[in-house]
């Protein structure tokens, strides 16, 4: 098929598109007021949801810490922790969730900013890939953080219920456990994220690379 024939068939295709796909002005108007159904928007919304839940958790943890300090008899974790331990637990949880919120927020910002762009295709692709990779990394940090901290506290509640900390194997384990669980959680999160986005991002990277190479070579 030569270029003239290609163009004539293309014109036929255009006529087909115009006759079948054309929409009324009110549909265009409705589209600008609609909510995005794209997967990127869904990711953004879920990050937004996580952000709200985590922020509420910080408020709850701080409130419980203050309540336990002011009135140790209402210690909500009385069955496992002393009032002092409970206060420490709530404060550490509030700080951990705050760090998680920070990473979550950074991921959210990356996703939000890549949604609107009128850059050329090559630059836009580059920015998109970079932002997606950053967002994924922040999301991994955010999701990895809580598991080892909670595991350490659970182990502490179980192993040190009637005993205080000392220089023994259990104390060593208390410090080793979160590191091991943290590493496992990090690699698991990386694996899951790779499973989700790996192939897709590799494909986009290949497009980007081909544009990069050829735009400078010629």
């Amino acid at each position: 098929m030569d270029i003239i024939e290609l163009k004539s068939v293309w014109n036929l295709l255009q006529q087909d598109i115009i006759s079948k796909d054309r929409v009324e002005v009110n549909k265009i108007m409705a589209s600008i007021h609609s909510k995005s159904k794209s997967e990127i928007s869904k990711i953004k919304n879920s990050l937004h949801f996580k952000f709200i839940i985590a922020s509420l958790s910080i408020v709850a943890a701080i409130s419980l810490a203050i309540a336990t300090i002011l009135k140790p008899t209402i210690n909500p974790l009385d069955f496992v922790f002393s009032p002092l331990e409970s206060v420490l637990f709530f404060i550490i949880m509030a700080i951990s969730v705050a760090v998680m919120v920070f990473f979550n927020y950074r991921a959210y910002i990356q996703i939000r900013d890549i949604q609107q762009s009128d850059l050329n295709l090559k630059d836009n692709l580059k920015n998109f890939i970079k932002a997606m990779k950053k967002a994924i990394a922040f999301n991994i940090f955010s999701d990895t953080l809580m598991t080892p901290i909670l595991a350490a506290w659970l182990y502490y509640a179980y192993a040190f219920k009637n005993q205080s900390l000392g220089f023994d194997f259990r104390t060593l384990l208390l410090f080793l456990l979160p590191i091991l669980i943290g590493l496992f959680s990090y690699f698991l999160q990386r694996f899951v994220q790779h499973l989700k986005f790996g192939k897709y991002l590799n494909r986009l990277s290949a497009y980007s690379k081909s544009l990069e190479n050829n735009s400078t070579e010629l």
Partner: protein
Amino acid sequence: MTVNENKENEFVKLVNESQGIIHKVCRLYCDDQTHREDLFQEIVLQLWKSYPSFKGDAKFSSWMYRVALNVAIQDFRKEKKRKYLFLESFEFKEPSTIQKNHYKDERIEALHKAISNLDKIEKAIMMLHLDDVPNDEIAKIIGISQNYVRVKMTRIRTKLATTIKTD
């Protein structure tokens, strides 16, 4: 009428005049009607969100091509997969390129089938070229040199011709 309503009407009028561009992008990058409708809505929405950055120094149609192609190239779908015994995972994939559209004209059918074998960037360059967008404009929209546009178009034509011949 408020300033915002004026702006909305002005935008809708401009998009309405060039809506063929969006439909062409949707036909090239989508495999079914539902996906086409979703992509159309997404492109219009992103055009509206980017509209404040449209300064008028470029043609509205060129700007529209740029945003529409950016949205279409980044578009991906979530596919549910059970890959590893207990771990149900989701994989984000490019939409399938197998076209489910059927055309009465055999030549359009053949062209459409051949187009589905091109990758996303090739589809973009081919569409711009066949829409008679000048090479310097294509180079600006894609972000590559004019030389590369020409080289790429030659390769695309060969690829299309081979596919059509084979079928």
